[in-house]
């Protein structure tokens, strides 16, 4: 027994080492898949992590059952549908404007679609910008009875703005450029910005015009507010992927192009199944019924476009779902966001 007392812990540790070795052996094949790139990581994980938002009508918000919906969210769902055939295989990580950079830089999310403006600095620092999905520009909203006709009248006003945005910088630039006095109230989240503006804490609020329209439509009496004519910046809103994985970058871009091309070719959620047998070669190619446009190299199924369109519809359908004439959130004329065929700027390379 005395003997036993001295030896047994050493024995136990030997056993433990053996077990650990066993556990480690099994580990190897698991790692092989993980090192393959982001697509494999995503497939392994079983869902797509989207950095988005839960607090902006139209772009990213919660419906009454708590489901994440919105234009930006649907872009993410399209990618999930392309990979898994399931638009619900997503995890939405709600982040504030000022967390966008660090979040995509660290590569912990697969795609950032949180109406994020494409700028050269961000492109070099944050991640790879895919394809512009929404053309916007910064404007000002004021109360209709304030007597302001132009942004240049805004001398000495108080402005509400979201922190960590290009909007915040543009605002400061614009007022300094034009020698106008300005007092700012800088909020961490968009909700607070508009709450403060509506309560009269600020004379003016500034943001992307689409966002202003969205918010204005939700106010108790939209007619009491107006958006000034000036557009003081270019805000091309674009989904971003982390730096350093070309295949993943191409994959997300291609999914976005599918959405735009589908609208161009008239393929919709409703008719996508019948379109597989369309006479049009381009349509059949897109839907994977004939030929190839790079699906294999991207690591996707030949007919992934069918899944995408069935899940979220084409670009126009996504837009209209939230911002069309009978949209869930508000009505915003497409203007620049019309297809190039209709005089807008939305244009995607051909799927060939």
């Amino acid at each position, binding site marked *: 027994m005395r003997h036993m007392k001295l030896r047994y812990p050493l024995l136990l540790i030997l056993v433990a080492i053996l077990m650990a070795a066993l556990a480690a052996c099994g580990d190897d094949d698991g790692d092989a898949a993980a090192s393959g790139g982001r697509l494999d990581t995503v497939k392994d994980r079983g869902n797509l992590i989207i950095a988005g938002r839960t607090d902006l009508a139209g772009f990213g918000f919660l419906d009454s059952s708590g489901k994440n919906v919105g234009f930006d969210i649907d872009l993410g769902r399209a990618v999930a549908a392309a990979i898994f055939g399931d638009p619900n295989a997503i995890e939405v990580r709600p982040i504030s*404007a*000022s*967390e*966008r*950079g*660090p979040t995509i*830089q*660290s590569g912990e999310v697969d795609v950032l679609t949180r109406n994020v403006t494409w700028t050269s*600095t961000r492109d*070099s*620092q*944050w991640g790879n910008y895919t394809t512009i999905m929404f053309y916007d520009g910064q404007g000002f909203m004021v109360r209709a009875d304030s007597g302001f006709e132009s942004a240049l009248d805004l001398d*000495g*006003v*108080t402005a509400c*703005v979201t*922190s*960590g945005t290009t909007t*915040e*910088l543009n*605002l*400061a*630039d614009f007022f*300094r450029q034009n020698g106008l006095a*300005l*007092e*700012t*109230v*800088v*909020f*961490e989240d968009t909700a*607070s910005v508009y*709450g*403060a503006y509506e*309560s*009269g*804490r600020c*004379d003016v609020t500034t943001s992307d015009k689409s966002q202003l329209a969205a918010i204005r439509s939700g106010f108790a009496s939209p007619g009491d507010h107006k958006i000034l004519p000036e557009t003081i910046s270019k805000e091309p809103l674009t989904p971003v992927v982390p*730096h*350093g994985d070309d295949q993943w970058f191409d994959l997300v871009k291609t999914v976005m192009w599918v959405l735009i091309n589908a609208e161009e070719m008239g393929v919709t959620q409703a008719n996508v199944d019948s379109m597989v047998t369309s006479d049009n070669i381009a349509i059949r190619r897109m839907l994977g019924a004939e030929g190839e446009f790079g699906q294999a190299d991207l690591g996707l199924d030949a007919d992934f476009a069918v899944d995408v369109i069935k899940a979220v519809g084409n670009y126009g359908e996504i837009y209209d779902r939230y911002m069309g004439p009978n949209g869930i959130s508000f009505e915003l004329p497409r203007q620049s966001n019309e297809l190039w065929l209709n005089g807008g700027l939305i244009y995607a390379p051909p799927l060939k």
Partner: protein
Amino acid sequence: MLTYRGIPLWRDVRVLQAIGQLVSVVFVVSLLVFFVANLRSAADERGLSLGFDFLGQEAGFPIGESVIDYDPGDSFLHAFAVGIINTLKAAVLGVLLATVLGIVVGLARLSSNWLVRNLAGVYIQIIRNVPLLVQLFFWYFAVFQALPLVQQAIRLPGPVYLSNRGLFFVSPQATPSFDAWVAYLAAALAVAAALRFALRWREQRTGRPSHAVVGPWLAFAAIAAAGWLAADGSPVVRNVPVLGEFNFAGGGRITPEFGALLVGLVLYTGAFIAEIVRAGVQSVSRGQREAALAVGLSNAQTTRLVIFPQALRVIVPPLISQYLNLTKNSSLAVAIAYPELFTVGRTMINQAGRALPIFLLIMAAYLAMSLTWAAVGNLYNRRVQMVER
């Protein structure tokens, strides 16, 4: 069988301890190496800069309010300083007001008046049991922003104007002759101090009442008044807020953001301080009060001269930790747009794209404030220890 073979190595406490320390050092160091290596590779891959050189660059973003002058054209370092000063402003004012409130409520809790006592209790129970962040949201969004528009500001005597642009009040403003008056004030202060010393000395020596409190005050007031009259025009004038096109101009101002933060912090911390004060006062034995009353001191005198000094010893240590909490809690201002240290720091991280250096600055600033409070606490404790008999 009984031969002594010495303690085997693996049973020797000293060896075990040395191994334990070594293992923990190795563990911590390797963890650090792992983190730093990852950081370095991340920095290389993604072009993150880790230096502090960006601090001199133009910040470019606006800040809502600032004690010192600030313009978006100023440097990041300047913006950070604005944040620190705003935090200090909230902390200092908050600590002062919370202490006053806490003492008043704490004493009210001990009042002989049933209604007063229980109202104080209700206040404490409500405030302590609701998260501070919820209270801040409530004060800012549901109260301060619900105030009338600036054009319909509530006018209080003073004049003080209350609107959802904040509280505007008359503030003193220095005129050119202010500097001359300051010299008089300094002289008045010196004279008063000397007089106080002399009168106290006399009082202690002779035992005759010498008005050691009133005398110096009178001297101070007399010299200050003389200086006022002698100055070329009034050295300080009233700066009255006037409603302009969009907002009031002139006068002093408390913005709704700062106001909500201050109200939230003061009410919350005040409730905790009240409980500390109550416990402190109750810790003084009943006999002390009875003895003081028997000696002929009034109720107020007993509280002020007998109970409070003794209660302080119990009160101060937890009080200091409440001050520390208040200072740290001021970081919640990030949710209600008051541009304090953390808020400005977060904006800087985004606009400068330098997460780590700025984060380190933020942590260092908070640590410095905490250490200051800890030092104050230690200092007080040491003094109290010496007084103890």
